[in-house]
């Protein structure tokens, strides 16, 4: 699958990037980071136009994110309320949703470019918790554009070693997820100790 997608990018350019970015943002595990890195390399080789490539990659990612958000908002919400008793009751669910609405911008922004594996889940959660779509769109566009520019620039700088760069970034992504989890767990543990003393 990966080879076919990269072959399509090499042959068809930005339109292929748009489609893959959109599908990946909905939640399908496609190697969109590698495609963006290779795009940077193709730009460095003079094969692809930087403006079109970055514009279409951003547009595809945002379109996919909005589909995920819509699924959560109009599909997941109803399902969640039907099974709210299994999730601690309606009141607890409402409290959680209020928390997502308050801090949702950080979740949306940082999962676009830093903790990317959580991105599709945050899209669904934002829709389910009725996070205002205008604000979702704002942070989504900012985060996705930053993500695309970072990956494409790295691919442009390391245009002759894209596969090695993809390996480094793949490992770093999971290291970042682990770091975020460690910070969160450490914070919770500290709060627990403070409450107990």
């Amino acid at each position, binding site marked *: 699958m*990966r*080879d*076919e*997608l*990269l*072959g399509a990018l*090499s*042959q068809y350019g930005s339109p292929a990037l748009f489609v893959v970015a959109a599908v990946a943002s909905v939640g399908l595990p496609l190697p969109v980071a590698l495609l963006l890195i290779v795009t940077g*390399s*193709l730009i*460095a*080789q003079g*094969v692809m136009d930087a403006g079109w490539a970055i514009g279409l990659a951003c547009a595809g990612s945002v379109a996919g994110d909005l589909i995920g958000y819509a699924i959560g908002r109009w599909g997941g919400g109803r399902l969640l309320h039907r099974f709210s008793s299994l999730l601690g009751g309606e009141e607890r669910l409402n409290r959680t949703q209020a928390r997502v609405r308050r801090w949702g911008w950080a979740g949306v922004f940082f999962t676009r470019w830093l903790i990317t594996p959580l991105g599709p889940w945050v899209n669904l959660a934002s829709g389910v918790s009725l996070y205002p779509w205008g604000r979702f769109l704002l942070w989504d566009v900012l985060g996705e554009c930053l993500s695309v520019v970072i990956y494409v620039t790295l691919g442009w700088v*390391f*245009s*002759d*070693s*894209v*596969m*090695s*760069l993809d*390996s*480094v970034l793949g*490992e*770093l992504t*999971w*290291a970042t997820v*682990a*770091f975020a*989890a*460690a910070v969160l*767990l*450490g914070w*919770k*543990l500290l709060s*627990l*100790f403070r*409450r*107990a003393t």
Partner: protein
Amino acid sequence: MPKTWQESLALGLALVVAISVLFVFGYRAVRHARYLRSEDQPIHAWMSVPFVAHTHHVPKEILFAAIGVEPREGDRRPLRTIARQQNRPVAAVIRDLENAIVREHGKAP
């Protein structure tokens, strides 16, 4: 109180796991980073001849000649497509390219 202890233990264990995962992936990232500027980049079936020429710093005309293809401007066909059109395995096309790179560099690609 026992509930707090159980909760603390579970959180502590989860924290140890998260830090371990952080170190494992961090170490692997550093290990891969050492190959970033290496000339030994692998050739894949999705790559086009100009792409391989760029990653290995070899003129594309030499690589096109090595696999018996007339160089054309804008020929971005993946190696897999070229192999299919030549009725031979893609591994053979990649081997020919590697040999041409070896000859050009005077060392293994």
